[in-house]
């Protein structure tokens, strides 16, 4: 048996749980991280010598916990921290006994700490992905196009604020629940949006998408009666189900309405349908469920061959009330064009631009280009495409827009 392979599998399956249990138990992210890293290192040595333990995850937790106690005790000697008394001296027998102690599931508590609304959204995302998923600073820096130093600072500062401002390591009180849960959902939403933006999804973005998918599923399992949590999990699954259909062979983005539905992932769509149904049973609607329902209406094309655009427009109408945003206005305009004609869509876009100037915003120019082209207004479409290209689209979208522009000039 290959110790490293077993360790890899164990970290993949139980790593987030062990990390969370250590962080919550010691109320200290750095201590937990260091202790977990130590346990992994020790595992490779010990397991390749003596063979793997019966329960590798419990072994990692027990060794990590002991290491954290030792580190904490040392810090205490230096007068820096106050911790519970350490376990008795480590011996193989106590390790064996400890190995049968179940690992407490503290992931929900940890999610609430990392996603506290008093932390800036970008700090929440970084801290959540670092502490819960174990994503490296290097990788986080690459995804967010920032330096490793800046990313490290962001995370260090967030940890310091949690400590200094005393953000408690507890599930929030009922009075604060709504705002705290909203902050968690917003964190995952922004993280997924980052992963989704580039259809070409180089490995970092795909990784991030995978982690967000996993976290949203975990949250849905931990809070099965929160319909908006289920809504977000649905939304992410449906968006992710289309990943295989989002790129053509040249690496250009394929818009939703032109995607080959046979490439959509039926398993994710299925999973999403069940989640959305459970959300609906709770009888409390909200923006995430509405967005999920819009995605679900698009997903239905896989079965029916058509898109129920009228239904999409109605859902966008509700969403505009629940959570008004320029993106919702623009998406609704595009859907409206399918139901009422291109001119109605263009009118709606103009109306959105009057509420808030959108000409420097990529989704607006891309939508305008598409509708103008369909209305036969080639000059305006070309202008919008040039504006969109100047707004720094991700590579796959840039190829798509550039090709549209070529087609117009041809």
């Amino acid at each position, binding site marked *: 048996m290959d110790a490293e392979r077993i360790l890899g599998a164990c970290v993949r399956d139980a790593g987030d749980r062990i990390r969370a249990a250590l962080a919550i138990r010691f109320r200290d992210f750095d201590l937990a991280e260091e202790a977990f890293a130590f346990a992994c290192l020790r595992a490779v040595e010990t397991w390749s010598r003596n063979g793997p333990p019966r329960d590798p995850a419990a072994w990692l937790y027990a060794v990590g916990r002991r290491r954290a106690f030792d580190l904490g005790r040392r810090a205490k000697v230096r007068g820096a921290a106050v911790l519970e008394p350490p376990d008795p001296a480590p011996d193989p027998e106590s390790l064996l006994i400890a190995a049968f102690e179940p690992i407490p599931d503290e992931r929900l508590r940890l999610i609430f700490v990392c996603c*506290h*609304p*008093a*932390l*800036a959204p970008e*700090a929440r995302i970084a801290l959540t992905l670092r502490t819960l998923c174990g994503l490296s600073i290097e990788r986080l820096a690459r995804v967010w196009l920032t330096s490793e130093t800046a990313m490290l600072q962001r995370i260090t*500062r967030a940890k*310091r*604020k949690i400590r*200094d*401002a*005393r*953000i*408690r390591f507890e599930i*929030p*009180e009922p*009075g*604060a629940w709504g*705002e*705290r849960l909203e902050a968690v959902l917003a964190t995952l939403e922004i993280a997924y949006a980052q992963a989704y933006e580039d259809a070409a999804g180089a490995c970092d973005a795909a990784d991030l998408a995978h982690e967000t998918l996993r976290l949203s599923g975990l949250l849905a399992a931990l809070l099965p009666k929160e319909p908006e949590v289920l809504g977000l999990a649905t939304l992410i699954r449906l968006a992710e189900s289309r990943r295989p259909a989002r790129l053509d062979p040249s690496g250009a983005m394929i818009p939703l309405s032109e995607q080959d539905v046979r490439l959509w992932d039926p398993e994710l769509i299925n999973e999403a349908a069940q989640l959305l149904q459970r959300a609906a049973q709770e009888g409390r609607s909200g923006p995430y469920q509405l967005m999920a329902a819009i995605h679900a209406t698009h997903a239905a094309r896989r079965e029916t061959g058509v898109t129920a655009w009228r239904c999409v427009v109605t859902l966008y109408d509700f969403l505009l009330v629940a959570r008004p945003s320029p993106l919702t206005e623009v998406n609704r305009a595009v859907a409206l064009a399918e139901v009422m004609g291109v001119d109605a869509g263009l009118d709606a876009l103009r109306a959105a631009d009057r509420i808030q100037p959108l000409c420097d915003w990529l989704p607006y120019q891309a939508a305008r280009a598409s509708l103008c082209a369909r209305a036969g207004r080639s000059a305006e479409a070309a202008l919008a495409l040039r504006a969109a290209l100047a707004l720094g689209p991700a590579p796959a979208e840039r190829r798509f827009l550039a090709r549209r522009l070529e087609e117009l000039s041809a």
Partner: protein
Amino acid sequence: MQYLLLIYSDENLSDPATLQEVTAAHMRLGAELQEAGAMVGGNRLRKSDSATTVRNVGGAQSLHDGPYAETREQLGGYYLVEAPDLDAAIAWAKKIPGGPNYAVEVRPIWPIG
């Protein structure tokens, strides 16, 4: 009559000698105030990056990570509250009334010693 004396300083001051000097001077001033019967209270605050600001805009409240940094509003008062954690402190901050637009910065006290 009571007066609030607000201290604005470089919070990243790190030269140990200067820090020590300033701390000692604060101790001396504290003793002097006590002796004169003028001391009502005083605290050191944690660095501004541990602050959370509750913004009130037309009745809507939102949280922001960091200190209050606008210049239009001026410091108009303060409450010193005992709270078990940040959520509880924020809950109090949200109850603080004001005009249509105002903000309340929640900053932890940094106990001395």
